[in-house]
């Protein structure tokens, strides 16, 4: 026989003692972030990806060193546009393994590289058509694969006749990226999907029950984005000591876009912050938080802004390496400012036991 269940019934009243906070989480911040950042950033990503696919097509039709250079440049533009919107990890980008198909990273055991090299060595024709490529491993389909095709060993042959398979595979990858980015951009542009859910919290909304949950998502984008830059992007190649550095584990080392991509990631996060207006209307007591956040974003940009050389050269240069180490430290401080300081002002202190799953 079941006895009455005696779970603490007073618990529901416990959370009704919020700390005094200055700013109210408003759904207008979410609407502004979507209009000012998410939609234009996805649209730019789609546009640059379509452009990259077209330059690949032109290269494959009539290979030349100039057209190869154009295709490489278009890759960098598309990869940069992706990095700018990459902090967003909600909505259609999370469906159909799109995140992994766009960029399978980190690839700790070089599975993707081996698969791409295998395709090139075996001239696997099924990788050269979009439909059959999309059925293959995610690591063969995105920016990692396209970077190797355009910048990796043997890529110079793309500028001459005689690398038609490599070019065709690159074309299929570029088409895949264009298709994914266009689909995601279209879904965000509509009010029916994620944009509608995120801006209309309600008890029946499957994702956001109230304004606070919806606004919390903005903080998640910032906090998790900063964590990604530090733990995955920078720590992936930066050792405790220079002897521990591993430049070939850096994202986009072949195309020299490692630091450029990190700057785009950070730029996207600043655009979330600015676009949503999270630092506005904080009140006199908390205005310093907005000032500090802007100060740290500016420090990051100043530290990284002219580090254009390949990552191996930067790491070998004491001054440049020191600036990367500094940027790593600043990302942690910034994460605390946003995740504790600013979110506390909104009464949205990030959950302790629900932060990132366990």
């Amino acid at each position: 026989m079941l006895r009455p269940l005696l779970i603490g019934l007073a618990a529901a009243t416990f959370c009704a003692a919020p700390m005094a906070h200055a700013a109210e989480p408003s759904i207008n911040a979410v609407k502004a972030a979507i209009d000012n950042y998410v939609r234009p950033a996805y649209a730019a990503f789609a546009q640059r990806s379509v452009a990259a696919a077209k330059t690949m097509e032109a290269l494959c039709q009539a290979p030349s060193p100039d057209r190869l250079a154009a295709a490489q440049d278009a890759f960098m533009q598309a990869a940069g546009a992706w990095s700018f919107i990459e902090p967003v990890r909600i909505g259609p980008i999370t469906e159909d393994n799109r995140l992994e198909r766009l960029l399978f990273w980190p690839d700790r055991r070089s599975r993707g590289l081996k698969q791409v090299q295998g395709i090139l060595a075996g001239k696997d024709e099924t990788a050269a058509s979009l439909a059959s490529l999309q059925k293959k491993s995610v690591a063969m389909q995105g920016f990692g694969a396209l970077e190797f095709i355009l910048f990796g060993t043997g890529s110079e042959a793309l500028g001459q006749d005689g690398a038609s398979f490599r070019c065709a595979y690159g074309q299929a990858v570029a088409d895949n990226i264009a298709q994914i980015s266009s689909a995601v951009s279209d879904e965000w542009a509509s009010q029916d999907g994620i944009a509608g859910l995120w801006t209309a919290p309600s008890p029946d909304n499957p994702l956001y029950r109230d304004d606070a949950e919806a606004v919390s998502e903005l903080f998640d984008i910032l906090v998790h984005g900063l964590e990604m830059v530090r733990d995955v992007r920078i720590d992936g190649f930066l050792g405790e000591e220079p002897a521990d550095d591993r430049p070939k584990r850096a994202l986009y080392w072949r195309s020299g876009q490692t630091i450029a991509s990190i700057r785009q990631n950070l730029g996207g996060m600043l655009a979330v912050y600015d676009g949503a207006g999270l630092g506005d209307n904080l009140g006199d007591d908390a205005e310093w938080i907005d000032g500090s956040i802007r100060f740290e974003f500016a420090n990051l940009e100043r530290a990284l802004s002219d580090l254009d050389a390949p990552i191996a050269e930067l790491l070998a240069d004491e001054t440049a390496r020191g600036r990367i180490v500094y940027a790593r430290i600043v990302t942690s401080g910034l994460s605390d400012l946003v995740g504790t300081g600013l979110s506390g002002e909104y009464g949205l202190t990030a959950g302790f036991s629900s932060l990132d799953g366990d």
Partner: protein
Amino acid sequence: MRALIERRDFLKAAGAGFFAAMAPRAALATIAADAVFATAYKDRQGGFGVAVLSEDARLLHTVPLPDRGHDITSDPVSGRSVAFARRPGQFAVVFDHRGGSPPQTIAAAPGRHFFGHGVFSPDGRLLYATENDFEAAAGLIGIYDATEGFKRVGEFPTHGMDPHEVLMMPGGRTLAIANGGIETHPDFGRAKLNLATMEPSLVFVDRETGDLVEKHSLAADLHQLSIRHMDIDGSGRVWFGCQYEGPATDRPQLIGTARPGEEGKLVALPADIVGGFRNYIGSVAANRQAGTVAVSSPQGNRLVVIEAKGGKVLSDQAMTEVCGLAPEDAGFMATTGTGAIAPAGRKTESLPGYVWDNHLLRIG
């Protein structure tokens, strides 16, 4: 479960030196408590540790930890408990809540880190911990000899990645292990490296031979349903709770049952209950006497109690960031990431200096 009077007698018999490592007031409070629970915490100064709580939500004492802890397991024979580091931590701390011996730290073996869970053999001699061989991305059970200062004496594979909770099945021979299926590597913090290809499973392994007894996998379209936490009901059935790594708009069932020789299955809970979980179950606890199973969702702020026999939902309660669960009397004690302690049938308390980690265990 030991009755209060027996423990008092035991403590009396143990003599005055027994409490050497504990402040007298804490020792007295521990004696007076009917039941004793433990949970990992973070304090307001940013420090980490294990809190020992009484059944009426008083803090009896604390054991500091070098970094964030996760779950605790208890040896029913010696009464000692072990708190494990949260993944990808590399320490576990053995402590005696009655102060019989000072805390002892176990360091992970080279190339291994803990996942945060473990279990003792019924005789208390061996401790089994879920671990990661992170270069190979292979799940392991590390075996420690509790009679030899917790020396690591062996390991065997869990036949999957990311083993999370491990339980001892009735009979004491078979381990139930939840392979969460998510690849991580300490070089990249807690980043999830294989969401497109994850293969979670629930395995039963013979702890004496290391042999795989059975492996239960989910249907292919549910391969992103990470099986992480479990408990065993009064009939010997494993109840497991999952975290879904696929799109947030999907709403898969998150609770399932399995036992050796019987096909595992997901429990069909009503859509409004499933929706409240936000695709995330943080803890599962069975109350074998009451015939109930409680599951918590700190992301959904939900605590749901299910009838173990029929799978019927008995209660659905909102509680901010509820996660830790332990059976108490006919109900459950719950703890939250906001610092609340909700004992069964008593007033919810909150200790101002602490927030509670994901798990709560009765240790005495």
